[in-house]
């Protein structure tokens, strides 16, 4: 049956564990999967600039033996002529077997999913959801910690507009014994609906602070984020807040030796390049993990749709 993934919560914890198992199997034996999607086509519809997510989806499909057809920007597509997302989804369903879509408007992926006859993967809909980034985050946490329970997770930076932060909170709130430390400027705190929907609903302990260094020794995971210019209506606010947190080797002095530092990338300056060689820096591993999880997700959805 055709199924789409709009939000990380569309996947149960059991399904997440199955995806992680598939991803680890792909890592262990990539040849086994080299023809899993022979002659199948992924359509990447990216109506908003993106380098890594699009390339990651495309690399994932190629490594599964499939093909990619693409719309790389809204300006070069029929959207520029005023075509609706619904019509685009119906049309592309005639060409491809699965869609990965990024769109600046929140809810666009849902509209595509309800109109397409093939599975749709949300590759980011404005500030709303970005489930495959969360899949990358989860595989990274799993490979670094071998557990999803009993972790103190620090989230730092733009916790208001950062969709990856909201998805990660939602995903990790479903496991026992986790604690969140929310580090942000006052103006960029986690919205109350995220706190109500996950943290309070599952009685997950959390603290909110503006002081990264003070909480550093407690953390098992530190998830850094970029303050995103494109989420602000007001340039002045962006300029005032963009350099709120910059992680430097000095700030890691009191961190645990097995801390895992994650970042959804791209970074601007919020993690100093001097940290890249620190064994605790996991953000480039995270990029690679994202590709494996996208491979696992494409396989799962094509299998469920009866396409492979």
């Amino acid at each position, binding site marked *: 049956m055709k199924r789409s993934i709009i939000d990380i919560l569309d996947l149960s914890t059991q399904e997440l564990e199955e995806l992680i198992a598939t991803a680890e199997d792909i890592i262990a034996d990539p040849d086994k999967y080299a023809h899993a999607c022979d002659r199948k086509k992924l359509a990447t519809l990216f109506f908003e600039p993106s380098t890594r997510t699009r390339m990651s989806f495309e690399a994932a499909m190629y490594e599964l033996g499939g093909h990619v057809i693409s719309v790389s920007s809204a300006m070069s597509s029929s959207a520029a002529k005023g075509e609706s*997302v*619904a019509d685009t989804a119906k049309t592309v369903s005639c060409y491809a077997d699965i869609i990965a879509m990024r*769109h*600046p*408007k*929140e*809810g666009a992926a*849902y*509209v595509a999913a309800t109109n397409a006859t093939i599975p749709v993967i949300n590759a980011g809909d404005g500030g709303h959801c970005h489930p495959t980034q969360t899949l990358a985050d989860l595989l990274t946490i799993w490979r670094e910690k071998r557990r999803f329970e009993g972790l103190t997770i620090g989230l730092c930076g733009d916790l208001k507009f950062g969709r990856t932060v909201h998805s990660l909170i939602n995903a990790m709130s479903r496991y026992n014994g986790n604690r969140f430390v929310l580090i942000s400027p006052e103006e960029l705190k986690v919205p109350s*609906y995220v706190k109500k929907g996950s943290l309070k609903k599952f009685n997950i302990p959390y603290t909110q602070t503006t002081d990264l260094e003070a909480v550093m020794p407690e953390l098992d995971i530190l998830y850094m984020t970029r303050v995103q210019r494109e989420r602000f209506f007001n340039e002045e606010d962006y300029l005032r807040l963009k350099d709120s947190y910059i992680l430097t080797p000095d700030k890691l002095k009191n961190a645990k030796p097995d801390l895992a530092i994650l970042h959804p990338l791209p970074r601007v300056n919020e993690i100093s390049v001097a940290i890249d060689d620190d064994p605790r820096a996991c953000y480039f591993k995270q990029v690679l993990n994202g590709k494996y999880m996208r491979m696992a997700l494409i396989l799962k959805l094509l299998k469920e749709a009866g396409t492979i």
Partner: protein
Amino acid sequence: MNIDSIQNGVVIDHITAGQGMKLYHLLKLDETDLSVAIIRNVVSRKMGKKDIIKIDADIPVNLDVIAYVDPGATVNIIRNGALVEKRQMELPEMLTDVLTCKNPRCITSTEQELKHVFRLTDRENKVYRCIYCETKAGI
């Protein structure tokens, strides 16, 4: 103050005082040429004050709108001058084209043909969220 009884029509009673006009607009009664009486601030034993809307025509009214705006209201159907049906309100699971999403980043802000649909996500606190962007509804 006297408002004639209606023979065939709908009486929306027990509307929280002050909500009558809002309901009148949300039910799109202003777009019809029906005889409609909006009675405001009527003395009520149960409520202190209440609003009443009387529609002099047996037309289907959108109960979802009434339930959302004022779940304590009652809808009475009058036929041949007699009360034939009294409906209690219950919060609907979905509201379609009753409210519009106020989030400028929502897909409904650019794609005009999309229905504005809100889902009840918290019955206790009467919270509805846009099915597309999950923004909380507000009138």
